[in-house]
Every structure is written in C-alpha cells, then in structure tokens.
C-alpha cells in the first residue's frame, strides 16, 4: 500500500456535521470524500423546514443548503451520493474503503458523522400514531410545513386547537432512553411560533416535562410564547378518539378540582426524541466502534481502540444544528492538526514556522484565562488582556501565553490576520498586532435577594465552595431553589445539583425545589435520576409566588405550594442553609464592549446577536470571536468546545491569510475623488471593513469586506464603485417585460434554484438584499422590467445584519414615489430551504 498524497479523509454522512467538517478541510491539502447513502446532501437539517415567522427563529436549517452548495463546488471534496460503504480495511497507512459504487478509497482518517434517527413513535401505542390522522410527529409537522401542507389538518378549523407533547421517546428509562434529546423543547417552541404565525387564531398548548429553556434564543422564545401559548407541566401519555370522532381527547390533571379533565384538540404533535441512527449497528461493525448504552458513539476524539476514527455530530450525542456544525468543525480541526495538513496555496507563509499568529483574548474573569490557555496550548501566541491568569494546577503552564492583567482595551481595529488592539496598562499605551480577537467577558451574576438579609441564604457559588471543601460543616439541611427569580442558568444549575449530591453524601438532608429541571447534556437525566435515588427530595413548584420563605431561629422555613400534590398540602421545608443560584445577566459594561468590538447586543444585553450566520462563536467581523457565558449560556465544556471551534475558524482564516497574492477583490471600492468623507460607510459597515487610511480617507479593507454593498447603497455621494453591481448595471440586467427577481445569493437565490420559476421571472443573484436601494429598483424598471421583486433573508438571518430591512425600506420608498404602481415593486423574505414557499409566491406573478 502506498502513501497517498494529499492524504485522504473519509467523511461518512453528508449531514450538517459532515458538511461542516468537509468545509473546513476543503481549505487544506487533503482529499476529502463524503459518502452519503441518500441522493442528496443535508441530512435531517436539509429536510427541515424554515421556522421563520416575521423574523428568523435561529434554527440554522437553511445553512445546510449553503453548505451543500459549497461541498458540491469545492475542488478537494469528492461526493459519493447514494452510496454505501461495503468494507473498511485498516492497514499500516490508514484505511482502504470499498464503496458500493465500485470505487476504493485510501484514507488516513475517518470522520463518522452518521447522524441520528427520530424516535419511532409507533412504539408507544397509546398515541395511536398512524391510526389517528391528526396525531403526527414533529418530523411530519416539519414535512407539512416545508411542503406548505399544514392546511390538510388545520385548514378546516377557524381556530385550531393544537397540542404539543414533549419527551416522546426521551427521558424514558423504560425504553432505554434515559437522556434528554436536547432539541425537542426548542423545536416545539419554534413550531408553535410558526403555527401561530400561520394560524393567528390557533390555540396551542405545549405539554412538557421540564421545559429546557437554555440559550439566548430559547429564552427569547419562552418569554414571547408565555403569553400566547399555554405551557402545561405534565406530558400526557395517551390520546383518545373523541366520541364525536373529529377531535382528539387528552386527559390531564385538573389541579384545582383535584381530579382529571378531558381536553379536546384538533391536532396533536408528538415531539419525538433523537435515537441513534437506524444504521448505527452497521456503522459500528464497519468501524469496529462500540456504542454507549443508548447507541451513540460518545467519543469526540479518536478512541484509543480505534485511532484515526473520529465521531462528529448526532452520531456522538444528540444536539441541534448549530452544535452539530460546531462538532463537525472541531473534529475536522483535530484531523488537520493530527495530519499536519497544509493550507491550500500556502506560497506566502508556507516556509515560516516562526510566523506563529498571535491571538488576543479579551476578558475580565476566569473564562478568559481558560480560553487563553487553550489557545496557547494549540500553538498560537495568546495574549490575555484584561484579566489575571487563573492558576490551573491541572494544566501545564503553556508556552506562548502573555498576560496583561490590567489591560484596558480601547480599540479593536483591523480584520482577520491584521488586528490592532489598543490598550492602556499601568499608564502605558500599548498596541498589540494579532490575527484574531476572542472576547470572553464575564456576565453579571446577580445574587437573589429574597428579602431576609442573612448569611444563611447563599448563592450557589458560596454553597459550591462549602460543599467542595467541607461538606460536613454544612448545616443539617440544605434547600436549593432553582428558577426562582428568572430562568435558571444551566451551568449553575448543574453545579448546584452536583454540590447537592456532595452534601447528601456527607449526610445532610437536601431539598431541590425546581420549576423546570434542566437535564441538558447526555448525562443530565442520569444525574437527576441519581439525585433522587440518593434520597435528595425533589419538589416542584409552579411559580415563585408559591414559595413563602421566612426566617427561623436555625435558618429558614419554606412553605412550598408543591405542584404534584394536592393544593391543600403545602410542603413545609426547614433548612439551615438556603441556596439560590444567582441570575446570570448581561454585565452593565457590555454595551461598551459591544461598541469596542463594533458588535450588537442581543435582546437581553448579552454580547453577540442571536443571528445563526455568526453563532455559535463568530461575529459580523472576520476574526472577532465570542466565547463563554458573556455571549451565550455556556458551561465549562461548552467553553472548551467554543475555543476549539474558534481555533478551527482561525485555521480556516489562516488559509485565507496565507493565500498567495493580495486578498480577494471584494468588487467594491471607494472613489476618493467623490468621497465626501461623511463616514456613513464607516459607521454602517457591519463587518468593520471600512478603515481610514493615512489621509483619513475611508477605504475598504478587502480582507474584511463581505461584499454586501451596504456602503454603496447608502453612500450619499455615490462615491462607491462596484464592478458587478453598479447602479446603471441594473438597468442592463433587467430583461424587457420580465418580472425581475433580485435574490440574495445565500437565501432566496438558493431556494429559487430548487423551485422551477415561471417563464415570466428572471432571476438575478445579488450578494445581499441591502444592495437594493430605491435607486436601483427604479433603474431596473427603467431598463424594461415589468416588475421588480427583491428577495432577501428573513429578518435576523442576514449575514450583514440588516440587508433585508434595507431592501424593504427601499421598496417602501419606491411606493411613495408619485404615480408608482405599488404592485411593480415588492419585497419578500425567504430562506434557502423554502423552495415551496418561493414557488407559491412567484406563481402569483
């Protein structure tokens, strides 16, 4: 067997994890092969419907379309679609892989991204799926939404009553699935939002076990749905045919009456969990991998018995689209490191090993230390600015880590590969030149003041220290209240639960009082089970007003309206120590940090908008990244994964940075003679791509520019030139008497490519809808177009943030022009995975 060059990497599975791995690898000298048994790439995400209502709901499914496009176009990625693996033979050089298309591949590494299968709901006979036509799974609801077929069931009801039943096939020890599938609560919340959007009169009830409100976008759904959707704790396990036959009957607890009541619904959606892929055993056999007791290959690195085999995405553990993509990148990044793959076209810096890029880590607490260590350990020069390095006895003191603990950063300018970070430290003014910037700021932990001002009521951090150091010294009984003053933070909840176990093991009586127990991560359910099994009392309450806390001689007396026992039996809990985890909130200085980084805050004031084009770790600026709980709800493991993900992104950036010749031409340039120096462009550029040159003239940094053309559309002096999208070009583009569809290349264009367009429609791909200001719409009409339609991303999904809003604004302006027939200029938003919707909209033209 001979060495192959470039080294081969086999990716099994063309879902989002596999495609994300391929995308990263495609920038390196490797021969990447994706073997996918389906005829198309995308996996489950590729079949997922867009959940957007008035705005994007941040599921990320549309990204799979763009990723598939990229994989198809990538030079060094070979696709084997509709193909199965017959045999994998390991030899001294790697693996020989026989495919059923007759090909044999020689590869060094294998990435198993074989995904999951949805739980087969027919296994729970009492739901009567398949028997009652209006009982469907989330997967089927998705198909109906995607194909715009939800009217079959719901169309005949003016105000359809819809039930979502969570945890079908999850958190169920009896069926061998004692884990939370991680995604179903958010899926149902998205589905509920979507259905409310489509059927505003719908009455939706979500029956949940413990609604997993985790993450910035999910807290947002929860807060918004709380008013419009009925959220009911308790998951019905049976659906009955109504006597009249039409409706479905579900019996639930009538707590007030201490009895049961029957509810009637027009449709029930079973929120089915994630199970191992149906072909799991086949995969295990081919790769000689042992699944865990649930059937997942829970190893992210190369397992010792199977070196050079990596598992990514839902084949490893259940996760959502964004986390699966992240997992794919992490694994690809490890492959790149293990095989020492060289970036493609590495002519410029290929020889200079000394030229190690520097990475600035901005922070003010322990998370920044962890990130900086990981960055340095990966071989980069890490600069920790603004936080002292936290001692970590478990980690070696990494080489290449510099610390400026008192740095006060006032400037982050430039772009990937070429940042200037200005800071003051001890009166000095310093500048750091670096390739990337990671913002890892600490959020604010607001202690809950329950109004008793005693040292006995402590935050979970204080409890944690006590439980870890001297659990014996804890008072005899400890009560922990979760979710008391707002959404529980998953990291704090997990720590508190682990500390509760420590206290229990030390012989203390422990009460866990929760509204909705967070059971995130693979072992979350098992930890919860263990907590109960060890004899920690679990009480459930409905809302904070149901807990009365009073000070007693020895600590606290709690009277809890326990949700699962009769209302006339409030449970009295006496405890020597009361633990209330703090609320994790945006730090008051986050607006300053956001301005520093030229980034937006999310609704709650955390760093980073929820836009999936950038999440989990990126920003609108190339080379500026976020890590840790200052930007999203993360725990220690997430922080590690995020850092690895950022390093994967930096690896991909370094490909671009080291590419031969000048950076790619963005196609836009500022015409200095016409520039009025108003700095509109500098102000509005979402990507930080406008820099001021020596003459204080704005200039476009090609390395930072995403070619969105926002600057051009907004330049009052018409001083920005575009090669492909000059104002006048639009008149020429438009064909006579056609409906011209200007479609964003990342969303509507991809969807329209899948939909066959009517003859009368001429489609033009544009880099971002923001290019379409009123001027160019008029130009196209003057050029002979009968109508102009602009199609951009859903609000909140634009890579350049406001592209679609800009276009919609242009349309409104056009409508205000005297004599303008409004029907001639219009805007709609669409995602890359909305072919059916685009077909419907355009068929009306």
């Amino acid at each position, binding site marked *: 067997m001979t060495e192959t060059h470039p080294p081969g990497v086999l990716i099994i599975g063309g879902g989002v994890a596999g495609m994300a791995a391929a995308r990263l690898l495609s920038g390196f000298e490797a021969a990447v092969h994706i073997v996918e048994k389906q005829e198309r790439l995308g996996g489950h995400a590729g079949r997922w419907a867009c959940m957007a209502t008035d705005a994007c709901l941040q599921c990320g499914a549309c990204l799979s379309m763009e990723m598939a496009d990229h994989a198809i176009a990538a030079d060094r990625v070979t696709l084997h679609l509709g193909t199965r693996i017959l045999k994998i033979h390991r030899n001294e050089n790697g693996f020989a892989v026989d495919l059923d298309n007759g090909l044999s591949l020689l590869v060094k590494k294998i990435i198993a991204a074989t995904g999951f299968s949805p739980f087969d709901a027919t296994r729970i006979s009492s739901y009567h799926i398949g028997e009652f036509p209006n009982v469907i799974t989330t997967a089927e609801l998705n198909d109906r939404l995607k194909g715009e077929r939800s009217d079959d069931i719901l169309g005949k009801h003016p105000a359809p009553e819809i039930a979502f039943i969570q945890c079908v096939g999850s958190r169920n020890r*009896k069926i061998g699935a004692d884990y939370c599938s991680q995604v179903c609560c958010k899926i149902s919340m998205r589905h509920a939002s979507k259905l409310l959007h489509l059927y505003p009169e719908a009455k939706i009830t979500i*029956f949940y076990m413990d609604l997993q409100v985790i993450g910035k976008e999910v807290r947002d759904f929860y807060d918004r749905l709380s008013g419009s959707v009925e959220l009911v704790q308790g998951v*019905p396990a049976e659906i009955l045919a109504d006597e009249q036959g039409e409706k479905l009957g579900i*019996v639930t*607890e009538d707590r007030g009456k201490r009895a049961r009541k029957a509810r009637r619904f027009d449709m029930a959606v079973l929120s089915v969990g994630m199970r191992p892929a149906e072909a799991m055993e086949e995969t295990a056999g081919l790769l000689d991998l042992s699944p865990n007791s649930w059937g997942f290959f829970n190893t992210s690195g190369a397992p010792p018995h199977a070196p050079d085999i990596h598992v990514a995405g839902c084949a490893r553990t259940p996760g959502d689209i964004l986390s699966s993509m992240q997992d794919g990148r992490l694994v690809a990044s490890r492959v790149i490191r293990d095989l020492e793959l060289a970036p493609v076209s590495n002519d410029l810096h290929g020889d200079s090993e000394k030229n190690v890029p520097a990475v600035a880590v901005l922070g003010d607490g322990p998370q920044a230390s962890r990130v900086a260590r990981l960055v340095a350990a990966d071989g980069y020069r890490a600069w920790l600015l603004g936080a002292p390095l936290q001692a970590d006895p478990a980690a070696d003191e990494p080489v290449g880590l510099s610390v400026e603990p008192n740095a006060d950063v006032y400037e982050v300018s430039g772009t990937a590969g070429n940042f200037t970070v200005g800071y003051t430290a001890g009166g000095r003014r310093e500048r750091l030149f670096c390739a990337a910037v990671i913002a890892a700021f600490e959020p604010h932990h607001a202690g809950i003041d329950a109004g008793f001002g005693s040292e006995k009521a402590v935050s979970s951090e204080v409890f944690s220290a006590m439980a870890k150091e001297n659990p014996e010294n804890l008072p005899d009984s400890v009560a922990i209240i979760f979710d008391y003053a707002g959404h529980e933070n998953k990291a704090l909840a997990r720590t508190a639960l682990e500390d509760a176990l420590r206290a229990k093991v030390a012989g203390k009586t422990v009460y866990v009082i929760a509204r909705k127990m967070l059971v995130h991560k693979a072992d979350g359910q098992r930890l919860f089970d263990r907590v109960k099994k060890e004899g920690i009392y679990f009480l459930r309450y409905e809302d904070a007003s149901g807990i009365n806390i009073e000070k007693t001689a020895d600590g606290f007396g709690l009277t809890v309206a326990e949700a*699962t026992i009769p209302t006339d039996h409030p449970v009295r809990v006496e405890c020597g120590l009361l633990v209330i985890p703090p609320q994790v909130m945006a730090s008051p200085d986050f607006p300053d940090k956001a301005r520093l980084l030229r980034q937006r805050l999310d609704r709650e004031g955390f760093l980073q908008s929820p836009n999936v084009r950038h999440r989990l770790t990126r920003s609108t600026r190339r080379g500026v990244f976020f890590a840790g709980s200052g930007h999203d709800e993360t725990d220690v493991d997430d922080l590690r994964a995020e850092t690895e993900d950022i390093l994967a992104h930096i690896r991909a950036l370094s490909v671009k940075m080291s590419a031969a010749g000048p950076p790619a031409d963005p196609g836009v340039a500022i015409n200095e003679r016409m520039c009025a120096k108003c700095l509109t462009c500098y102000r509005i550029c979402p990507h930080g791509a406008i820099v001021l040159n020596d003459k204080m003239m704005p200039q476009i940094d090609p390395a930072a520019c995403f070619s969105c053309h926002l600057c051009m559309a907004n330049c009052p002096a018409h001083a920005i030139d575009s090669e492909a999208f000059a104002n006048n070009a639009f008149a020429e583009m438009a064909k006579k008497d056609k409906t011209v569809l200007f479609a964003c290349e990342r969303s509507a264009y991809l969807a329209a490519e899948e939909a066959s367009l009517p003859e009368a429609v001429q489609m033009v791909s544009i880099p971002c809808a923001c290019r379409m200001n009123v001027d160019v719409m008029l130009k196209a009409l003057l050029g002979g177009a009968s109508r102009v339609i602009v199609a951009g991303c859903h609000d909140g999904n634009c890579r350049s943030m406001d592209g679609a809003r800009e276009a919609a604004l242009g349309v409104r302006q056009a409508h205000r022009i005297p004599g303008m027939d409004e029907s001639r200029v219009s805007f709609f938003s669409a995602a890359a995975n909305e072919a059916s919707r685009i077909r419907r909209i355009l068929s009306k033209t």
Partner: protein
Amino acid sequence: MENAVINKESKLFKLSNRLMSDDNISECLTCGACNSRCTWFDEQLEGHRGPLPRQIVRMAAMGMDRGLVDSGMLWDCLLCNRCTEVCPMDITMDVVVRKARSLDIADGLISHDMKKGIKTRLELGDVNGLTKEEFVETVEWVSEEFTDDMDDPEAEIAYDKKGAKFLYLPNPRELGLNLLHLTAMGKLFYAMKETWTLSSAHTDVTNWGYFVGKDDIMRKMALMVVEPAEELGIEALVLSECGHGYHVLKVLLEDIIGRKPKFEVTSIPELVLDYAKKGVLKFDPSVHPYKTAYHDPCNIARKSGVYDAPRELLAMVCEGVVELSPNREDALCCGGGGGMLQDSESTNIRMVTGKRKAEQMKAAGPPNIATACLSCHRQLGELSKHYELGVRVDTVASMASEALVINTGASG
C-alpha cells in the same frame, strides 16, 4: 390548611422508598404521564373524584400517609396499572396503592364486604362463607349431574383426589350462583382425558389480601392454596378465569411465599389452548356463528403479560376475534377492578368508572364480547345492561366448553 412535612419516619415512606429493583417511587420524574391514563378519565361522582396517580406516588414518596389516606384516592384506584404502563421510571402503581391501603390508618376505608370476605376466606377457605360440608354437598350433587350429562359413569367432578394431575381452583361464583360454569369447565377437563380434582381445603381462587395490600393476609391465603395442593401431589394448579387470582398465584406467588411451589400454575384458558394445540381438544366454531371482541383483564394482560393465549383460544371457538380500541397494553379496565367488584355498595361508582369501557364496547360493533376473568365478565355484563348496549358477555373458557366437540359415552 395544614402544612405537610416530608416524613421519613412515616410507615408508608419506609414501605415505599426501598430502592428495590429500580422501583423507588422517590425517583418519580413528576412527568405526569400517569395522570392521563387513569381509568376514571375525566369522570367523577359525588364523593369520589377518582385518583390522580401522580399525587398518589408523590404523597407516598414524601411520607404523607394521612393526607393520602384522607384523599379518597386509595380505594377509587382500580389497580389497573394503565398508568404504570406509561411510566418512564417503571413505578408500579398497584404496588404503591396496595402499600398505602395496608396502613393501619387506612383500615377504616376497607369496605364491609371486603372485610367480611377476607374473614370468611381465612376461616372457611371460601370467600362466600361456604362451609366444608356445604362444599362437599354441592360438589357431589354437581358431579352426579355431570355424570348424567356426559353419559359416562367415569365422568366426575372429584374433590381432594390424591394423585390427580390437575387441581382446579374455581371462582367462588362457580360454587354458588353459577354452578353451570363449573360443569362447563368439567367438560373441558373430561375432554382432555386427564385426571383432575377440586380441593375442599381451599375452595376458591380469590386472594383479597391483594386488594387490601396486607402481605400477611396475602401470604396466608396463598399458603391455604399451596400447601394442600402440594399434599395432593398435583402436577399443575389450574386457575379458573380470575384476574387478580391469576396475578397473585401465577406472577406474585414466589415472592409471597418465599419459595417455588411444587407444582406448575396455569389457567383454564391456557391449559385448554395447550390441549387444543396438541389436537386433543376439538371445537366447532359454528356454535358461535359470530365474531367476538376480546376484553383484556388488567391483571392477566398488563399485570401478568398474557395477551395472546386467550385470543388464540377464542379464535378457535367462534368466527374470529375482534379488537377493541385501545387494547392489549393500553386496554381499558372494565371499571370494576381494585376491589370495587368485591364491594356490593360500589355499583354506582362502577357504572361511572366503566363508562369509557361501555363506549368502547358500543363502538366495537359486534354484540359479543368475551374475557378471561369472571370479575370483568360480571362488570361488563352489568355495563351492557346499564348502558343498554345489548352486548352479550361471555368468558373464553365457557365459550370453549360450548364449542367443544365431544363424544359422550364410556367408550368415547
């Protein structure tokens, strides 16, 4: 309103939180699945709101003995285990409720009939108070009739016959109101050409210790069956069609008496099916020229896992089996379980708890239903009458007996 305190010292807490076989009720996820499965559905009636299974489990887990006893849920519960079937943690509701019923402070809730039945069963070996003399008199008279019916002097209904292969344990109704059923069963044994006997020491299949949850009573009653049966040296104990009797004597027996009995335990439908499969028994299905719906008794189906045998037998003795919906694991309780049918004052409640069952019977179409439990049989019959369903209710074994193709006479 009085505050409840989690009481680790409570009797129920100690009974229920023993981490046995992953059946620890403190592990309850409070998912609420059980609440949607109660046989009471959304029904209630004056003074009986029906159970909320989750509240039962949770109150038991917290040691709220008094609160649970006072809730009225304990004897409203039908012990049908429909809730258990969907519990993700496999918490077995009939076990929880029976433990709670066993509390001394719950003794006052036990119905008059139940108390009386237990007393007479322990004293006389028969729940209806049949004395040994009455038993002998009855059986001898039935046996004579049987010999005539069969036109075979060898045909008999024996009792206390040592060395018989089978010991048949009848339902108390077979020795009282429904002697014809005993004769019908006798026909089946006769056609099997096997030796069989009754026992005068323990005349019936019931074990009401199960309903009141008292392990000592359950054990005494079980030993009243086991020990004399072992003395007779039988090969197998054949249970009449009785749900809780089957569950206790077939599934729970070893736990209750702490050892294996020296005989096999089976039920009459299962035994008949065996002999039919061997070709010994033959049936003429045209005796019942109609399709019959099968009702799964909770104790035999969900609680003991027997679903197919009665259906197979039923299919041999009529035109075919029709399924009720839902059925098998999800089957609806007849509404008379948990000790209801053993309480003569429960009729009005049973007509409420059986309402869904009645609707189901109505929806099933064919006017014939069969089951393998004489308690269910009685309840279904009463439902049919009360709700004017016009459904004819049978038991599987009696239909088998009716359809039996038999050559009477000594030479066979």
